[in-house]
């Protein structure tokens, strides 16, 4: 088992664990963290699988990961701002399960 495959599997593991966390945890901050970890998992897989037939690592996935990190940062920022506003307005940090206003 080469190192890159190990890294890729670790990435998959992160993705799945974080997905579980996203679904199971009710606290919004935990959900946001879970999404971040999922993102990191994807990036890890991407970098790990970047080694192609050639000796030197493939730069294209690296470029994609950088773009991905930028996107993740902006998304997290938006999520945190929303979280803070939500706490301000409702006093809670969880979403109701049945949030459809009747």
């Amino acid at each position, binding site marked *: 088992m080469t190192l890159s495959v190990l890294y890729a599997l670790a990435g998959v593991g992160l993705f799945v664990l974080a997905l579980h966390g996203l679904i199971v945890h009710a606290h919004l901050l935990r959900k946001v963290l879970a999404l971040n970890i*999922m993102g990191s998992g994807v990036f890890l*897989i991407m970098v790990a699988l970047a080694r192609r037939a050639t000796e030197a690592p493939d730069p294209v996935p690296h470029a*994609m990961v950088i773009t991905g990190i930028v996107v993740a940062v902006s998304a997290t920022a938006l999520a945190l701002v929303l979280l803070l*506003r939500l706490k301000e307005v409702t006093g809670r940090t969880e979403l109701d399960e049945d*949030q459809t*206003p009747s």
Partner: protein
Amino acid sequence: MSNELNTMPWIVWVILIPLIGAMLCFMWPRRGKLLGMITTLITGFTAFMLYLQLLDHGVIRYALGGWGAPLGIDLYADGLSVLMLLMTALVGLGVSLYGVGYFKQDGENPAGFWPLWLLMWAGLNGLFLAGDVFNLYVTLELLGLSAVALVALAGSKEALSAAMRYLLVSLLGSLCYLLGVVLLYHAYGTVDIQLLGALVNSNPATYGALGLMVTAMMLKSALFPLHFWLPPAHASAPAPISALLSALVVKASFYLLLRLWFDVFPAVTTVDIGLVLGTLGAAAILWGSIQALRQTRLKLLVAYSTVAQLGYLFLPFALLSPIAWQGGVYLMLSHALAKAAMFMAAGNILKYGGHDRIADLDRVAQRLPITMTAFCLAGVSLMGLPPSGGFIAKWLLLEAALTHNQWVWAAVMIIGGLLAAGYVFKVVGYAFTKADSPHDARPVPLTMEWAALGLAAGAIILGLNAHYPLALLDIGKPFAGMSP
């Protein structure tokens, strides 16, 4: 078209102009309305120019910065992309006009609307013209984040919760999609759509990517049973934003799915997967319509109607005839116009009476006639009654189903149309009656009423001569990947 105009890179401008406009609106919020309208008009013009260029040239491929695939970013325009661009421009024009009137009132924050809306438009245009799957991811995220921010603009408890839920769902979808992109790149060494289409064959990575990407698009297009985030988000957002969300944003992910299905994965898609998607679409039609019938609030009714109508879009996956895709795209087009008009009308009614309880509509038919006409015309298209774009779409879908004796799908479409009539006329009926507790009416700016009527009339006009849109759709043969 004159030579200079023909050689301009309209394909780039149509993405750049709204981006620049968004920056300008952000820097000068006081001039937001003016800058926003100007940007809207120029973007619409550019989209039209691209359309003319497409008619001249055929399919257009443009390498950004002069670097081509597989390393550079390619933009690609065929009939389907330009159709989506024009649809966005039309709806965008209506929404901008509506927004000018809507945000004039006190208490509504205009400073956030224009930059975010124009950013969303840039994202949409970029998505429709993207030539590789990673670029699609970037534009998808841009679209998603601006949409979430727009939902949260209303500032109420429901809006913030809905926005949060929408954000979580959106990010989940994007990450699944990105993982799919990673798998594809690992297997084939490229992210360009055309190249992938030629290379893709059956192997585990491809199936993994297919599964992830289809699931991601199902989530983003609110296909039953992953639709739970849509009604609260679309109902609690301010009216022009609900219009944008239902008309355009959910269609973008559907467009993405179409591109993947026909251009990247044609070698591995099977009838069974199509059948699953079609079945979920049918479930969406029935479930969404029944839920819409049960609502007591107008905007929620319209939001559930979106869930139902999106179900129709997934039926062509299960239908065997190529006409079905024409029907699906036509439905996407008419639904965009009709649903935007309907949300705008609902917004007018909300503004007028201060509430949107259906049972208390209090003779709105008499007091807001332009708005009610808009609502009714939009309803005609949603129900699939002639003459309207919705009718043409329904006809094409029914023809596709009946040519191959697919009775169940035909029955689902007919029942869906009747249920739609149920919830549309529920509203129309109450619009004629007097409410028990009449309330003071607040005036509604004429721009808002006429914007709604204009879009609704557009949905009807689409039903009068379907040759042009269908001919446009054919350029580049986007559905050629399907066996007839």
